[in-house]
């Protein structure tokens, strides 16, 4: 019993310590840039590397998942009393509310999160972060703020594209034999609530922030060498995924209930 409480206390004190360090890092991140132009340059290159670079994978996944969701919904609603266009409504809602903002963000947590953590981690172990610091540059701000800005700006765009392509995927599946194109397109417009898009974009924005800041935290404080960089990249992906799932629940409570 004593052992149990010892481990529990260790676990919580560690957790609280990490949370504190994370907050301190955030505090250091949001400080005045030394030079707007340099930060803007970093923003553009992060936009390219972390944002635009994800277009391909997001497009492919959205198209296919959109198609699959449509087929599955059709399969489940296979009842002569339910009109076909209900399938399109259901598809639309699952894509807009959950698939695009949450699942795509989870995929990005894997892709972008591991990239950020391992980049910052390598910079830490090769002393590049120290080199910035000695120059008088705030490394947290210079290395992390542009990444947060890039994803907070671009992920909502990416999610809109994902929604559109998901619906296109659904369309392709319907004309592939599930239902008529007219019914599908009609269904997309029925009972459409624009607030659902707002809700999805708010979620995306929060997830983008969590992905970058959590992954950056794991990269920024790496100690050791290549192995530790790898370990922390994995932790970054796991932690940001969990953070997304938990905050998804909390945001949904607040925004939809």
């Amino acid at each position, binding site marked *: 019993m004593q052992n149990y409480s010892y481990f529990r206390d260790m676990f919580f004190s560690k957790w609280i310590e990490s949370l504190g360090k994370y907050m301190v890092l955030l505090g250091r991140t949001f400080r005045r840039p*030394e*030079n707007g132009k340099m930060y803007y340059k970093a923003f553009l290159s992060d936009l390219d590397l972390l944002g635009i670079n994800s277009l391909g994978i997001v497009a492919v996944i959205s198209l296919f998942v959109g198609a699959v969701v449509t087929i599955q919904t059709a399969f489940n609603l296979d009842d002569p009393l339910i009109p076909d266009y209900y399938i399109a409504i259901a598809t639309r809602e699952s894509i807009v509310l959950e698939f695009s903002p949450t699942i795509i963000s989870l995929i990005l947590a894997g892709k972008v999160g591991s990239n950020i953590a391992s980049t910052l981690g390598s910079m830490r172990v*090769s*002393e*590049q972060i120290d*080199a910035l610091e*000695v*120059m*008088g*540059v705030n490394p947290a701000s210079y290395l992390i703020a542009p990444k947060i800005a890039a994803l907070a700006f671009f992920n909502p765009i990416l999610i809109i594209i994902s929604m559109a392509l998901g619906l296109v995927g659904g369309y392709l599946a319907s004309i592939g034999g599930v239902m008529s194109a007219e019914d599908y397109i009609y269904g997309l417009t029925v009972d459409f609530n624009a607030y659902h898009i707002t809700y999805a974009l708010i979620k995306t924005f929060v997830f983008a922030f969590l992905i970058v800041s959590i992954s950056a935290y794991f990269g920024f404080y790496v100690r050791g060498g290549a192995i530790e960089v790898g370990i922390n990249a994995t932790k970054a992906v796991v932690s940001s995924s969990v953070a997304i799932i938990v905050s998804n629940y909390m945001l949904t409570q607040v925004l939809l209930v």
Partner: protein
Amino acid sequence: MIEVKEIRKSFGEHEVLKGIDASFYKGKTNLIIGQSGSGKTVFLKSLVGLHEIDSGEIEYDGTALGGLNRKDRKSLRTEMGMVFQGNALFDSLTIEENVTFALSMFSEMSAAEKKDRADFCLERVNLPGVNQKFPSELSGGMQKRVAIARAISMNPNYLFCDEPNSGLDPKTAIVIDQLLQEITQEFEMTTVINTHDMNSVIEIGDHIIFIKDGKKAWQGTGEEILSTDNTEIVDFVYSSELFKKIRRKL
């Protein structure tokens, strides 16, 4: 001038710096020598504030580093240049971008002016024509020289070099040593260099601090080190047959 008073630094149970006093003079090449693992790197990083010291004080021309707020500390740092033991070049940037990084961040120089400055610094370390290459495309010794070029790009008042000529051939090592001494004198810098290269010690050792077991075991000049009777320094310097021979001749 940098003054260090009684600084201590531990990592967990392991006390690396056990109360070191030292002064580093303006316009002089100040050397820190000591065995591998004696704490030279920890000392240098503590000097610039990369390691928070446990106790003691570090003064830059009378200003205590510990008492500075964030803003003043940052502005003091723009007057520092540092060469890391492992170079710490920005590997995603070209050589020219590395050398001009601080200029881009802190000065209003035009692109052409920055390029001129990069050319100048790279020429001083004997490395012209590599501006557009990336660090990974250069040899270890070339990377070291880029790191030195980057450290002097802002004409720092304080220059810190952690083993600037390890990994260089004897001839280039001397070129680098002489360069460091030249710019130190020319720009009245306070230069602190970690080294265990005895050649540097004798060539450019204006003022030398010998660290052993976390304490300052000796200080003096490059000439004095050859004639001192301090047993610890004799033991350190004359560990090689070559220097034993030299000592017998002296």
